[in-house]
Structure formats: C-alpha cells, structure tokens
C-alpha cells in the first residue's frame, strides 16, 4: 500500500461506507410501517456486512499479491462448496470433488502466485475438464452421468476459473502502469457498486420487471440506473487505471453488463434448484456465491479486455 492512488481509492470506499451507514441510520429512524422497518433493518444488515467485507478486502490488498490471491482462493472454495451442495452429485463423485476442492482450486491460485499465465489460462478448461470426466467414469456410475459431471465442470468454471481472473489482474504487465492492485480494486468496486446501485434504483423507481421468471426483484429501472451510475463512477476513477476517461467508461460498461448477466445466470440456477440463496454466510446478503455472482462473469471479461488492449 505504498501507492498513493490506492490509498485514495480505499479512502473513497471508506467515505462511501460512512455515508451509507449514516443514510441507513436516518432511514431506520424514519421508518413508520412494519414493511419499511423490515427494509431498513435488511439494508442496515447489508451495510454492516459491507464494512466487514471492505475490511477483509482492504487487508488482503494491503498485504500485496499473496494476500489478495489467498482471499480470492478462499472465496472460490466457499463459493464452490455452496455450488456443489446444490448439485445432484452422488457418492461416486466423492473423489472427483476432493480433487476439485483440494487440488484444482489451490493449483489455479498457485499459478497466479508464480505468474504462469499460460497454464493458468488453460488448466481448468483443458486439464481439469478431462480429469473430472475421467474421474467420474472411473467411479463407474452412469445414471445422470452428464448432469453430474457437467455440474462439477460448471462449479469449477464459475467458482474457481472465473473468480481467479480477478487476482490474475495482478500478473498483467501494463506499460507505464504499476501497482495492479488498483485495477483489482477498480473491478471489484465497479461490479459491487453496480449491484448495490441496481438494488437502490430498483427499490426507488422499479416498475417494469426485466426477467420475472428468473429474478423477480430485477427491474429495467434498476438495471439502467445501476449500470449507468456505476459506469459513471468507474469513468470518474479513470485516474486510478491505465485507461483514458473514455476507455474507463467502456470498461466500466463492460464490467457492469457482464456482472448483470452473471447475476441473472446464477439466479436461474438457484430457481432451478428451488432455493432463494446459495447460503447464509454473509448476513443480509446470502451466501458467498450470492455476493460474487456478478464478479464471476465480470472478472474474466475485464481481465481479457485489459490484457488484449493494454498489454503488449
């Protein structure tokens, strides 16, 4: 955390949280009806959880690369456990799951730590893909084989491969740009702010549902308001990135749109399995996967856009 720009970014986030907590307190004191009180209580639980999440994230970024990589590895494991809990896996898949948790996931993050981009990019789509299928074949049970195997593939892709692209930003060599941790903060900030602002705009102005069958709380008003506002914030943060203001706007828009898609897809999986949340790890937010569903899709898209356009 020697980089003064990074200090300013984190300071800005903390200021934002102070404002949010103050607003939450005002809303709670003004709530008259039971419904309003419940909404305010849920909002304040979410804000308290945000303090904790920001604290953990800041400490991780503060410690440099290893801290961030370890934090995202842990997030992947927590997300994967929530994902697999809902999967129709059986006893015969036990060994495959052990491999996924204790070999594939740590290895993916180890590859980031040692900056081996080539293997990082293909380890899960090629080697884990084959390993999972073969391991399930060796276990010898064929009923719902494709469903069971594909679910583990999906769990590894979404919870490990996709999420790992966030800390992988640290290994990009961008000419004239240092301390890539700022890029990681930029991604996470824009993605999560987009989520929060979609929620806020949806609560304030939401009228027209965008996908009632998948996520009843998502509205066009929330989507447009959240995406545009978060992109505006991302654009305003161009000084912390290697991008020009225009490029920062385009990147922010890509992040928020991919994030929105991720949220919808992960919701569809929840509806299919008949649950509201993936877990109850984070008070007011649900499970780890409920919190990072947007990041799952935004991280690899942002990583590769940055890598393609901004590295030699």
């Amino acid at each position, binding site marked *: 955390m020697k980089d003064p720009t990074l200090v300013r970014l984190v300071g800005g986030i903390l200021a934002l949280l102070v404002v949010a907590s103050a607003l939450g307190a005002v809303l709670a004191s003004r709530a008259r009806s039971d419904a309003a009180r419940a909404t305010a209580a849920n909002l304040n639980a979410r804000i308290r959880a945000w303090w904790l999440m920001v604290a953990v994230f800041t400490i991780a970024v503060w410690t440099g690369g290893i801290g961030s990589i370890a934090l995202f590895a842990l997030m992947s*494991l927590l997300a994967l*456990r*929530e994902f*697999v*809990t809902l999967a129709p*896996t*059986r*006893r015969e898949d*036990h060994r495959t*799951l*052990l491999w996924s*948790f*204790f070999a594939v996931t740590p290895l993916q993050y180890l590859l980031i730590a040692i900056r081996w981009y080539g293997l990082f990019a293909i380890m899960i789509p090629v080697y884990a893909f084959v390993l999972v299928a073969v391991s399930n074949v060796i276990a010898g049970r064929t009923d719902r084989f494709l469903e069971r195997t594909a679910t583990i593939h999906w769990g590894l892709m979404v919870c490990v491969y996709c999420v790992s692209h966030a800390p992988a930003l640290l290994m990009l060599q961008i000419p004239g740009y240092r301390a890539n941790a700022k890029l990681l903060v930029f991604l996470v900030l824009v993605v999560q702010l987009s989520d929060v602002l979609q929620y806020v705009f949806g609560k304030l102005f939401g009228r027209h549902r965008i996908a009632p069958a998948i996520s009843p709380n998502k509205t066009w008003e929330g989507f447009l308001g959240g995406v545009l506002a978060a992109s505006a914030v991302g654009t305003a943060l161009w000084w912390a990135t290697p991008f020009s203001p225009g490029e920062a706007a385009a990147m922010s828009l890509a992040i928020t749109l991919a994030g929105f898609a991720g949220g919808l897809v992960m919701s569809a999986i929840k509806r299919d399995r008949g649950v509201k949340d993936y*877990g*109850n790890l984070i008070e007011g937010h649900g499970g780890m996967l409920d919190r990072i569903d947007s990041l799952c899709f935004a991280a690899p898209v942002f990583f590769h856009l940055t890598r393609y356009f901004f590295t030699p």
Partner: protein
Amino acid sequence: MIAGLIASLARLVSGVSIFFLSGPPDERQRVYFANHTSHLDFVVLWSALPARARDRTRPVAARDYWGRGALRRYFSEKVFRAVLIERGRGSITAARTTIEQLVAEMGDRSSLIVFPEGTRGSGEEVAPFKSGLYHLCRQKSEVELLPVYLDNLNRILPKGEMLPVPMLSRVVFGRPMYLESDETKPRFLERARDAVRALQDL
C-alpha cells in the same frame, strides 16, 4: 478448550446451518436421536449444541470403530467422552447389558446421542429403528427425547471414504417427545422415526 476447538472445526468443515424448532437445548438430561449416514454425524450434532449442553452430552458410538487406533481412541475418550458399545452381537443378554451400560453412563446428569437405525444408511431413507431406543426409554422414562435430522453429511463424508468434501450441511433439532406409559414398542419406534423424518423437509 480442545472440545471447543474441535466443535468449531467440525462446524467449519461441515458448513452447518443449525435450526432449533423449540429453542436451543438447555442443560437438562435428554436423549438426542438422529438419522445416521456418516462417521461425521455425532461430531456435527455434538458441535451444533450450545456449549453448556454440549459439555453434558455424550455420543454413543461403536467400539469396533471408535475404540480402534490411538487417535480415534483419544478423540472418543478424551474429547467426545463417547460411550463405546459393542455392536452386532445379537443375543438378548448382550443387548440388555448394553442398555444397562447406557443407563449407568448417563447417571442423572449426562445426555446421550444415539442413532437408532443402528448402522449408516445411504442418506435417502431413514431406516426402521432398532429397539434399543425403546428399551433405553423404558429405563429412563422421565428423560426428554429430542429428534434430530442431519442433512447432507452423507455427501460430505460418505461410507468408505477417508476425507470429507466440505459441502454445506444442516442440523434440525425437533420438538421434545416422551415414551407414553402404555405405548407398545413398534408404535413408539415408528413414532420416533416419523419425528425424525418430519424434520427432513423443513
């Protein structure tokens, strides 16, 4: 101290959500009975209890598994203070000795965790209960019975596997029940099994 750490570790590995349908158990003496699908069962049930109830609760476990090997014996004796029983000897006198042993180990203070199915099932169905639970309750009819449903532990550590896959699990503590004075053995065992099964879909 060690027990508290082990309980935290067990809750972490099993990612357990805990539900109490009639409030967290106090220190009163009772018999917890649950479905059985994994070696983790009693560890997770025990770790889900509030610390003060946990201190007084002893799992009933098979000597042929938990009494074998130094590490397992250390845990079963020192940490869980398990009541180790002989399994599958089949004779009526042996069964009677086991019940007497359980009653003696309970004293007027300890609670027990028992798995009346007798052996680990596949996790899909709760098997019919063995009669031990009935005979124990005949001896200790004043003691509260608490049905417990353990969900997903069979997938975390299935039969025959050494290492757990850290998925999420659920422990549901039901409402207390007692053995009625005029209740026949089959009716009681079926009622107890239904009480566990009723927690399955909550």
